[in-house]
C-alpha cells in the first residue's frame, strides 16, 4: 500500500470520509438518551462533559468525533464546534478524532468542560481508503493501493479524471491531447496482449462516469491481493472512485470555482518553403540521374522556376487563362463542365500548421454545495467546461450535475443515492494518429498551395504536381458542425441495515446509461485531387444500459481489544446491453448544414445497426484479521460466472491473500519509536482474470456482407446483388479466462512524521492468455477464435517518497512527493507454434511493431541501419540488398546490417530495434505555501522509451508529393549544403526512395523526456481583505510549461497503445495552457 500524502492547507471541506461506519448510528442512540430523562442510576459517578473544538487557527471545527475510549459511546461536534457528552465516567479518556487531524486522547479527570485545539495531521494513517465493496483504515491495508485525493486533483489542470492518475506510482498515463480526449491508463505494465484497461468503478458502479471536480478520492488497486475482489475483470487493475459527500452537522458550504485561460500550440515541424521545395525537386532529379527533369509547376529549366499560378499550371500573371471570368467551381455532374479553379502560387510558402492552429479559449466553472444534519448528509455539484482545441473549430463542452445524499431515517437503517449526470459535446475535426488527421494533412500539403484560390474558395491539390493532400483549413472549417454528443447518467441507490452490533447488510443497485450520438458531414472539397462527387452525411447513435445489483453482508468486531475481525460476503449481478444504429446519405440539394439531414439526402441511402450484450454473476468474500494492530491478514475470494464463455467454462474462482506486519508496534522497536512512526512490511499474492475478449468468442458465425459476400449474379448493373453468406468467425467453445497471478512485497515507513516512503516490488504473471492463433490462409479468411495459450510476465518496482515540513514558525509549509516506477514486460509464450509473432497495423504497407516469445508487447521491428554508404567500394563490399539480386547498395543509401550474417540483406535481417516501454517513469510534486501564497508544480519524466517517428517517413522521404522537412534538403547525403557527407542525417534525396523507407533503426528515436506538467501559483485573498467568506483564493497556472527531450517530432508523449504503441503517426500537438482562476468558499 502506498499512501499518497498530503498536507491539509485549510481545505477542511474536502477531506471528509466515507460515512458508512456504524459509529454514527450508535451515536444517534446516545442522542436519544440525551433527549430522554436523565440517567442517574449509574454506580459510578458520571459527568456531563461539554466543550468546544477548534482547529489550529482557533476556528470552530464541526464534525469532530468524540468517543469514550474503549466504548462505543460518543458524539460529534455541532456546526459551532460545540459538543456535550453525558454519562462520562470521571476517570475515562476521551478520544477526539477528525479526518486530517491528529487524534487526541484526553483524560477527563473530573473536568466537565474540555476544550480542544486539534492539530492538522501531516501523515494520515487514519484516513479511510476504499478497497472495493467496503472501506478500510489506511493503516490496516496490506495490499498495494495508491490513493489520490481531491486536494491533489483540484490543483491539476485536467479535463478528464484519467489524467489525475499520473501522480500515482505504477500507473502509466498517456494523454490524448484532443479536446476532452482524456488519457489511456496502464497499471503496472501490460498483463496481456488483449485489453489492458483497468476497471473503473465509480461509487460501486462498474464502468461509471465521473468528472474530476466530483471526486473525493481515487483508490488504485494495483496488485491482485487488492483487486481480486473484482475477480474476472480485475487483471488490468481497478480504479475506485468515491465522489464527494457532506459531513454530519456541517453547515451548508458553498464553493464556487471559476477558471479561464488560453491554450496554444507549443511545437511545429521544420518544413521547406516554396523555393526550397523546388530546389529539392531538382536535387532529387539530379541524384536520380534525370537530366531533363520537368515538373508541372516548377517548369523544365535547369533550375526550378516558381510560377505565378499553380492552376492553370505554371501560368503567369496576365496570361489569358487566368482571367477570373473563366473561373468555374461547378463539377461535371453539376453543369456538364469540369471545375476551373484558378489558384495563385504561394511563393513564400504556406505554413499549414500555423494556418490551422489558434489561441484556444478555456473556461471551467464549478459550483458545489455540501452539508449535513444529524441524520442526513448531502453534496450537490454542478459544473460547466468549455475547452476549445488548438486546431480551429475544434472543442469540447461538458455540463455535469451530481447529487449525493445519505440519510439515516432510523438508527439501524441508512439509505442513500449517488447520481451523476454528464452531458458532453465535442465538435470539429479531431482526427488523431492517422495520415488523414488534420495534423498530418498539415505536413502533407506542399507549401506552394495557397489556402484560398483567387475567388476566396479553398485551394487544394487539384493543381498537378501538388500531390494528394486535403486542405486542412477546409477540413477544419467544414467539419465545425460535426458533433459528438454523449449523455451519461450513472449512479446508485443503496440501503444498509445494521442488523446487530458490528453486523450490517447492504444492498446497492447501480446503473450506468450512456447514450452517444454522432453527426458527420463530409463536404466535397472541390480543389482536392481525390475529390468525391457528393456531400455526405453520416449519423449514428448508440446506447449502453447496464445495471448491477450488489449485496454485501459485513461483520466487524474486536475481541479482547486485540483481535480485530472483519468479514464480508457478497453477491453481484451485472447485465450490460449495447445497441447501435447508424445511417448515411449523400447528395444534398443545399450545402446548408441545417438542410443536410438524413431525410434530405438523395442517394447513398444506407443504414445499419446491431446489438451486443454480456452478463456476469458473482459471489465473493473477504476476511480481515489483525492482532494488536501488529499483524494483519486479509483473504479474498471471488467466483465469477460470465456469459462470454460457454457453459463448461463459465465459472472461475479468484483467490487472494495478503499479510502485514507493523514492526513499530513491536516492543523491540521501542527504542526507535520517537522517530520511526511506522514501519510496515506487506506481502500479497492473488489471482485476477480478464474476460474482455469480445462477447461471443465461443460461437461460429455465418454472416452477410454487401461488399464481401453479395454478388450481382443476374448481371444487373444497379443492384445490391444477390444475398450471399460466408463464414465470418470460427468459434472456440473451450475458451476460458485469462488469469493473472500477482505477487507483491511492500514496505511502508514514516519517519519523524515528516518523511514517508513506500516501496513495492511486484511480479505479475498471466497464464491462459487469449491469443487468436492464426489459422492458415488455405482455410479461408475467417476470424480466428481466441484460444487460451499465451503467457506474459511483468516485473516491476514502484517507489513513493514524501517529505513534508513547516519551517519559519510554521509559516512556510512545504511538501515534496516523488514517485518512481519501473516495469519490464515479457511475452513468455504466444502459442504452441514456435516463432509465432504478432504485428502492429501496417502503415502504408509497412509494419513497425512486432511481439513474440521473449519480447515486450510490442517492440519495434525492422532493419538495423549501420550508417550511410560513403563510397562505391564500401557499397560494393557490403552484402547485397535486398535479396541476392538486390541493387540498393550505393553511396548515399542506408547501410543495412546483415543481421543473420548470410551475406545477403533480406527480410530475415529484420530484428528488434527498440522498445516503446520506458525503463523508468516518475513524477515529482512540489507544494510550497507561505503566508497564503501557494506554489505547486508537477514534473513528470519518462526515461528509456523509444519512439518510431513515422511522420519522418512522410516529410524526410518521398511519400507522395507533400511537404518536406528542411533536413531532406539541407542534411541529406549529397546535399550541396552539406560540407561533409559523413555528417548526413538522411540518405540521398531521390525521386524514388521506397527502400530507404523500410522500417529501420533510422526511424527509432529516443523519446525520453522531462516535462513540467504544470506550475500553479495561488494566493489566499482572505489574508488581505479578511472577508466573511471561508475562503477566497486566486491562482494562475501554466500547463505543459516546458519539455526537455531529444525527440524530433512534435511531442515525445504519444497516446497510442496496444500493438501500435510508440508509433507517432501524426499526433495532436500538446497544448500549453495559461489559466487564471478564483475559488470562493462561502
Amino acid at each position: 500500500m502506498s499512501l499518497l500524502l498530503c498536507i491539509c492547507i485549510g481545505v477542511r471541506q474536502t477531506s471528509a470520509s466515507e460515512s458508512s461506519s456504524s459509529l454514527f448510528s450508535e451515536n444517534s442512540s446516545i442522542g436519544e438518551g440525551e433527549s430522554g430523562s436523565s440517567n442517574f442510576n449509574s454506580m459510578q459517578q458520571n459527568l456531563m462533559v461539554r466543550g468546544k473544538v477548534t482547529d489550529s487557527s482557533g476556528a470552530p471545527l464541526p464534525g469532530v468525533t468524540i468517543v469514550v475510549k474503549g466504548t462505543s459511546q460518543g458524539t460529534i461536534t455541532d456546526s459551532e464546534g460545540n459538543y456535550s457528552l453525558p454519562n462520562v465516567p470521571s476517570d475515562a479518556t476521551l478520544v477526539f478524532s477528525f479526518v486530517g487531524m491528529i487524534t487526541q486522547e484526553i483524560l477527563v479527570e473530573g473536568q466537565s468542560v474540555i476544550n480542544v485545539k486539534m492539530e492538522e495531521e501531516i501523515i494520515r494513517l487514519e484516513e479511510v481508503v476504499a478497497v472495493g465493496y467496503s472501506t478500510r483504515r489506511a493503516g490496516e491495508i496490506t495490499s498495494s493501493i495508491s490513493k489520490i485525493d481531491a486536494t491533489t486533483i483540484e490543483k491539476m489542470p485536467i479535463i478528464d479524471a484519467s489524467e489525475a492518475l499520473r501522480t500515482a506510482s505504477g500507473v502509466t498515463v498517456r494523454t490524448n491531447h484532443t479536446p476532452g480526449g482524456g488519457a489511456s491508463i496502464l497499471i503496472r505494465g501490460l498483463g496481456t496482449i488483449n485489453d489492458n484497461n483497468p476497471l473503473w468503478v465509480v461509487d460501486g458502479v462498474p464502468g461509471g462516469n465521473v468528472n474530476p471536480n466530483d471526486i473525493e478520492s481515487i483508490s488504485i488497486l494495483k496488485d491482485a491481493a487488492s483487486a481480486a475482489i473484482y475477480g474476472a475483470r480485475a487483471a488490468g487493475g481497478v480504479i475506485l472512485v468515491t465522489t464527494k459527500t457532506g459531513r454530519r452537522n456541517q453547515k451548508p458550504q458553498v464553493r464556487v470555482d471559476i477558471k479561464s485561460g488560453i491554450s496554444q500550440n507549443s511545437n511545429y515541424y521544420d518544413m521547406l518553403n516554396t523555393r526550397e521545395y523546388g530546389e529539392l525537386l531538382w536535387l532529387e532529379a539530379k541524384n536520380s540521374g534525370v537530366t531533363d527533369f520537368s515538373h508541372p509547376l516548377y517548369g523544365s529549366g535547369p533550375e526550378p522556376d516558381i510560377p505565378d499560378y499553380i492552376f492553370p499550371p505554371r501560368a503567369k500573371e496576365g496570361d489569358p487563362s487566368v482571367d477570373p471570368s473563366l473561373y468555374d467551381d461547378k463539377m461535371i455532374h453539376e453543369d456538364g463542365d469540369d471545375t476551373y479553379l484558378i489558384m495563385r502560387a504561394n511563393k513564400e510558402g504556406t505554413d499549414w500548421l500555423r494556418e490551422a492552429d489558434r489561441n484556444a479559449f478555456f473556461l471551467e466553472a464549478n459550483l458545489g454545495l455540501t452539508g449535513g444534519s444529524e441524520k442526513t448528509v448531502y453534496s450537490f455539484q454542478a459544473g460547466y467546461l468549455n475547452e476549445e482545441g488548438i486546431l480551429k473549430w475544434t472543442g469540447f463542452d461538458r455540463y455535469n450535475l451530481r447529487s449525493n445524499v445519505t440519510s439515516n431515517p432510523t438508527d439501524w437503517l441508512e439509505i442513500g443515492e449517488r447520481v451523476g449526470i454528464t452531458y458532453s459535446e465535442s465538435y470539429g475535426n479531431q482526427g488523431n494518429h492517422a495520415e488523414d488527421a488534420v495534423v498530418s494533412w498539415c505536413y502533407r500539403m506542399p507549401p506552394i498551395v495557397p489556402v484560398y484560390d483567387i475567388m476566396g474558395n479553398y485551394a487544394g491539390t487539384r493543381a498537378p504536381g501538388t500531390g494528394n493532400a486535403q486542405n486542412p483549413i477546409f477540413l477544419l472549417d467544414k467539419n465545425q458542425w460535426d458533433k459528438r454528443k454523449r449523455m451519461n447518467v450513472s449512479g446508485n441507490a443503496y440501503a444498509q441495515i445494521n442488523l446487530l452490533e458490528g453486523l450490517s447488510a447492504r444492498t446497492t443497485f447501480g446503473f450506468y446509461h450512456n447514450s452517444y450520438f454522432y453527426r458527420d458531414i463530409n463536404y466535397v472539397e472541390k480543389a482536392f485531387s481525390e475529390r468525391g462527387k457528393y456531400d455526405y452525411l453520416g449519423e449514428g447513435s448508440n446506447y449502453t444500459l447496464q445495471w448491477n445489483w450488489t449485496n454485501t453482508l459485513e461483520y466487524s468486531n474486536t475481541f479482547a481489544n486485540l483481535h480485530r475481525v472483519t468479514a464480508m460476503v457478497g453477491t453481484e449481478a451485472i447485465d450490460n446491453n449495447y445497441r447501435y444504429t447508424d445511417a448515411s446519405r449523400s447528395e444534398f440539394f443545399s450545402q446548408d448544414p441545417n438542410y443536410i439531414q438524413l431525410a434530405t439526402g438523395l442517394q447513398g441511402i444506407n443504414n445499419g445497426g446491431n446489438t451486443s450484450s454480456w452478463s456476469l454473476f458473482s459471489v465473493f468474500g473477504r476476511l480481515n484479521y489483525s492482532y494488536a494492530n501488529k499483524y494483519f491478514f486479509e483473504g479474498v475470494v471471488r467466483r465469477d460466472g460470465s456469459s462470454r464463455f460457454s457453459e463448461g467454462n463459465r465459472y472461475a474462482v479468484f483467490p487472494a491473500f495478503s499479510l502485514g506486519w507493523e514492526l513499530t508496534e513491536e516492543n523491540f522497536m521501542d527504542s526507535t519509536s520517537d522517530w520511526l512512526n511506522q514501519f510496515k512490511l506487506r506481502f500479497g499474492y492473488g489471482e485476477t482474470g480478464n474476460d474482455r475478449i469480445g462477447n461471443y468468442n465461443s460461437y461460429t458465425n455465418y454472416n452477410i456482407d454487401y461488399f464481401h459476400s453479395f454478388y450481382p449474379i443476374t448481371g444487373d448493373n444497379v443492384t445490391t446483388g444477390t444475398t450471399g453468406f460466408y463464414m465470418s468467425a470460427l468459434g472456440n467453445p473451450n475458451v476460458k479466462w485469462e488469469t493473472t497471478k500477482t505477487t507483491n512485497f511492500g514496505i511502508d515507513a514514516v519517519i519523524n512524521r515528516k518523511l514517508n516512503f513506500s516501496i513495492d516490488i511486484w511480479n505479475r504473471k498471466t497464464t491462459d492468455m487469449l491469443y487468436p492463433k492464426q489459422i492458415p490462409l488455405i482455410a479461408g479468411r475467417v476470424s480466428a477464435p481466441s484460444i487460451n495459450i499465451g503467457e506474459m510476465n511483468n516485473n516491476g518496482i514502484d517507489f513513493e517518497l514524501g517529505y513534508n515540513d513547516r519551517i519559519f514558525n510554521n509559516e512556510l509549509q512545504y511538501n515534496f512527493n516523488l514517485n518512481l516506477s519501473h516495469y519490464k514486460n515479457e511475452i513468455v509464450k504466444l502459442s504452441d507454434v514456435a516463432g509465432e509473432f504478432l504485428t502492429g497495423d501496417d502503415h502504408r504497407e509497412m509494419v513497425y511493431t512486432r511481439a513474440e516469445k521473449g519480447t515486450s508487447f510490442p517492440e519495434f521491428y525492422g532493419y538495423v541501419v549501420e550508417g550511410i554508404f560513403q563510397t562505391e567500394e564500401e557499397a560494393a563490399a557490403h552484402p547485397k540488398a535486398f535479396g541476392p539480386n538486390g541493387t540498393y547498395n550505393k553511396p548515399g543509401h542506408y547501410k543495412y546490417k546483415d543481421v543473420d550474417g548470410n551475406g545477403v540483406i533480406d527480410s530475415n535481417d529484420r530484428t528488434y530495434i527498440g522498445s516503446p516501454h520506458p525503463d523508468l517513469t516518475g513524477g515529482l510534486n512540489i507544494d510550497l505555501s507561505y503566508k497564503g501564497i501557494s506554489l505547486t508544480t508537477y514534473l513528470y519524466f519518462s526515461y528509456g522509451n523509444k519512439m518510431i517517428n513515422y511522420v519522418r517517413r512522410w516529410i524526410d522521404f518521398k511519400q507522395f508529393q507533400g511537404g518536406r522537412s528542411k533536413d531532406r534538403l539541407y542534411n541529406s547525403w549529397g546535399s550541396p549544403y552539406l560540407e561533409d557527407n559523413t555528417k548526413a542525417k538522411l540518405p540521398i534525396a531521390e525521386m524514388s526512395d521506397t527502400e530507404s523507407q523500410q522500417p529501420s533503426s533510422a526511424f527509432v528515436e529516443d523519446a525520453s523526456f522531462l516535462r513540467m506538467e504544470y506550475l500553479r501559483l495561488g494566493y489566499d485573498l482572505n489574508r488581505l481583505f479578511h472577508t466573511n467568506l471561508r475562503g477566497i483564493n486566486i491562482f494562475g497556472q501554466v500547463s505543459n510549461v516546458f519539455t526537455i527531450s531529444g525527440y524530433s517530432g512534435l511531442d515525445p508523449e504519444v497516446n497510442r497503445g496496444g500493438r501500435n504503441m510508440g508509433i507517432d503517426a501524426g499526433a495532436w500537438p500538446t497544448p500549453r495552457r495559461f489559466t487564471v482562476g478564483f475559488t470562493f468558499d462561502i
Partner: protein
Amino acid sequence: MKKIFTKIFIACMMVNSIVILYSCSEDFLLKEPPGVASGPVMESPEGVEALLIGAYSDLNGTSHYRSDFGGSMGSNWVYGSVASDDCYKGSSSGDQNDCNPIERYETLPTNLYVAVRWGDCYDGVSRANETLERLWATQTGNRPIKDSRAKEIEAEAKFLRAWFHFEASKVFEKIPYIKTKTELGETLPENIPNSGPVWDEIEADLQYAIDNLPEEHPLGEVGRANKYAAMAVKAHVHMYQNEFDEAKPLLDNIIESHQYELVENYYDNYNQATENNKESIFEIQASTSSTSHTRIKLAGVVFPQAGPAGIGWGFFQPSQDLFEAFQVTNDGLPILDDEERVPLENDMGIASSEEFIPTDHPLDPRVDWTIMRRGVDFLGWGICEGAGWIREQSNGGPYMTKKFMHTKENAKLNVYGSGFNNGQNFRLYRLSHVLLWRAEVAVEEDDLSYARELVNQIRNRARGSDVVMGRVSTYVFDGRPIEVDWSKPAANYKIEPYPKNADAFSSKEKARKAVRLEQRLEFATEGMRFYDLRRWGIDGEVLNNFIEKDSQFRSFMRGATYDPEKDDYWPLPQSQLDLQKGVLQQDPAYESK
C-alpha cells in the same frame, strides 16, 4: 422487538432474492450473438445457395482490404500486366510501395502483396468447399435440394474451386489443392503440401463442371458458369501447360457450338451497356447501388486523378512500348518485330500548357480504346490534356488505361457512390480468347492458313468497329476552348486483315509472332500479358529488352533485371510458410541460402 423483526424480515428478503438470482444464473448468463447465422441455418436449400453466392462474390477479389492491389484477382492487373511490358504501377512512388519490388522483380517472401493474393485465392477455395460441405449435409437431411439442382450446385462450386486454384497457379509455381474435409478423409487441409503444380486436380474439377453444367446459365442467371465457361477455363489451363492437343477439342467445341459470336464493335467488350453479350463466355459481374458496390476493385484505382472524370488514384499506366506496338504499316498491318517499330511522339515531361502535337503515324484503332493519351477524347469525358491529368508522370509515364473506366454516357449506370466505383463487368472469357488460342494451336500444328483466318476474324471485327472520334487541333491546354472536329477520327487509324500472301504467315515462327502480337493488342491491359510471355517462353528476352529500353520513363527501374529462372513466379508468402512449417515449401528460387 419489532425493530429486530423488521430487520430480520428485510434481511430475509435480501437473502431470498439473492438465492433466486443465483438459481437463475444459467439463463442469466446465456447471451447468444445477434445478427448472425449458425451452421445449421446454412444446411438448407436457401443456405447452400447463399453460400454459393458468397463463393461467386470472391471472383472480384473484394473480400478484404487491399485485395484490389495485392490480390489483383480477376483482372490480374498487378501480376499479369504491371509485371509485363504492357504497364507500370503508376501513381506516385511511395504509393502502394509493395508493388514497387514487383515491378523491379525483387519481390521478397515477406511482401504483403503475395500474401493478399494467396489469401484471396484460398478464401474463394474455402467458400467453394463450405458450399460443397453444406450441400452434402443438406442432401442427407430432411429437406434436400432437388437432385438436378444439387448436381449443378456441386458443379458450380467445383468450377469456382478450380478457378481460384488456377488464379493461385498463375502467381505461385507450387500450390496445395485444398478440397473439402469430406473428400480428404483422414488428411487435414492444413497438412496438404504444395508438392507441385495442381493441374490434374484443377482439370478434374473443371471436367466435373463440364459434365454437369448445362449449356445455358444455371437458374437462367447470367453470372453463373455454364458448360462453355468451364470448357474455356479448362482450355486456358491446357494452354498454360502448352497442351495444345487437349486444348484444341475444347476450343473447337466452343466455336462449333455457335453459341457465341464476335460483337460488331470492339468496344462492346468494355462498354458497360453491352455486358453479357453474345461474345461473352464468362464475366465477373459488378454492380453499384445505393448500399453497396460489388465492383471489380480495379475501377477507381485506375481512374485518372485529374481531369473531368478525375476521381481515381491514377494507378496502372500503360507503357510507351505498348503504345508503339499499336503502330501499323501503311497497309494497316502490325509490325511484328520490336526493333522495326519507329518511336512515336509522347508528351513525357511536357506540361499541358506547353505545345504537344500527337503522332500522325497510322495506328491500330484499338489503341484509343485501350490507352488514354493526350489530345484524344477520353470516353466522352473530355479531351485528355496530358500531364495535367497524370498523377506523377516522372513515376508512371504519360498514359492511363481506358478499359476499366465507364464512358460519360454510362455515368447514369453508376450514379451511386462517390464516382469512384462503377459496375463495369470484367469479361474474363470471350469468344475472341477462344479464337486466338485456337489460332495458336493451329500455328503449332502448322495449319497457318487457319491461324490466319482466325486472326483475321479478330482484325476484321476491329476494322469494322467504331473508332474514337474527334480530331483535336488545339495543342496547348490552358483553359481556353479546345477545338475538336467531331466528324473526324481522333487519329490516323488503319487496320487491315492479313492478306493471303502475308509475310507474317509465311513461316511458323512469323505466324507465332503474329498470333502472339494479336493477343497482346486485343487483350492489352487485361492482365494476361506476363503469363502469356511466360508460357511462350519469351519472358526473359522480352522483359529485359523492355527494361533497358524503357527506363527513361521509370527512373527507378535502373539496375533491375528479370531472371526467367527465378522471377517467372512469385515467392510463397513467408507468413504462410511459418504457419504451415513442414507442409508448405518455398519456391526454391526464393530460398535464402
